């Protein structure tokens, strides 16, 4: 079964991360790389996203598309990236999420299985 882990972070922490000198950021990536290494057999996709300041949102006003600067919701948290994982069940996905090292909340969502043939 496939799930997506949405990695979020508090905006404060995301800003700190963004402001880090390159060498320090590389070091901070260590535990994250370890996590990806440990679960490489289960991870079947995913991306890291540019910070929230790069986000653009398209809203629909009576069917008319309106382009605005910023994320789709203004909250305390911001999405930093996601991983698609293929595991047996929710418990296995939760176990992976529990070991995510950044301290930010991780949302786990099952992916809808449309029964499409595997390529």
């Amino acid at each position, binding site marked *: *079964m496939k799930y997506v882990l949405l990695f979020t972070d508090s905006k404060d922490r995301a800003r700190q991360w963004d402001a880090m000198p390159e060498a320090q950021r590389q070091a901070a990536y260590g535990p994250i790389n370890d996590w990806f290494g440990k679960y490489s057999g289960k991870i079947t996709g995913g991306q890291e996203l540019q910070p929230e300041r790069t986000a653009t949102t398209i809203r629909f006003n009576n069917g008319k598309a309106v382009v605005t600067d910023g994320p789709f919701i203004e909250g305390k948290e911001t999405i930093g990236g996601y991983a698609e994982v293929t595991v*047996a*069940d*929710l*418990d296995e996905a*939760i*176990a992976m999420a529990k070991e995510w090292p950044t301290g930010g909340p991780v949302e*786990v969502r*099952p992916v809808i299985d449309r029964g499409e043939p595997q390529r």
Partner: protein
Amino acid sequence: MVRALGDFDLAEELVQEALLEAVEHWPAEGIPQKPGAWLLTTARHKAADQFRRRARYREKLAQLEGDGMRVDTAEGDDRLRLIFTCCHPALSREAQVALTLRAVAGLTTAEIARAFITSEATIAQRIVRAKRKIVEANIPYRVPAEHDMAERVDEVLAVLYLMFNEGYLATAGSHASRRDLAEDAAWLAGLMVRLMPQQPEALGLLALMRFHLARAEARFDQSGGLMLLQDQDRGGWDRERIASGIALLERAALIQRPGPYQLQAAIAACHVEARSWEETDWRQIILLYDALLALAPSPVAQLNRAIARRYLDGAQAALDDVEALADPLDNYYLFHATRAELLRDLGRDSDARLALTRALSLTENPAERALLEKRLA
């Protein structure tokens, strides 16, 4: 099914349940050879559960049968799988409670709705949503792995304790169905003990519930007014239940893994074992609160410890401890009610009245209000 049970609604609900179970199991396990027979058997099992549950005083019965009796393994494993799935942490607490009462204790949605003073539609919807999440998010139907066990048992016990308090804290008389909820919770805790005899916190929680239930009747006077522990008729306490609680606690102690439920039960045991209010072992109670606070710090436990200090070190010492909790407990009626009692002991009557007024503004419970109003008069 209807013929066998003589109750169409019940039969319908049980068959519905069996169908839901089929939807959950068949995709994973394959369609059985005789699906019709499978459904009927499943519905019959569910009917047996219902009648078992409906036997009056079944918690009492369980207590008399002894808590050492083990459920036979195959059926036991199935029940455990069901309990752990209903109490899965990915479900909301409300959903866990409703599902557990429905699927494990066998209450109807109407009974659950009555117990929580809400509509049947609300409960039904809660259960449907929870079942949908179980299927769509693929919450596994199994007993958790060893490394998850402690955490998952805690989750189950938290669900049962919430259920118990919901029933136990309800007022007397008019809400008898809510009182039954406390018995249901105790029965479920008893089931956990029989299924997992080596989990000391399950033993502790069941003991705690038994001590509370032993005093349940004595908490109210004839007109339904609240009786404080010091004023209760100790002769009216259920001695058999107390003895069974003590035995559970001793069994838990042998496992040598103390926990918050065992400690709370030990504190309750100090109260139920004292022959009179004056003979209460306050020193022991304070030591137990210290141990509890070390394991599970909480301002409410600190408040209770302060109340115990009143009888060991006097009202001023207790009040000093209580005042320190003003910040976290300002919206808790018992904080202000306790403060009022201590202030009155110290002769500060006008401060006491102010505190009582504040306490009164913070509780809706009619029995609690009546007690506070009597003190204000």
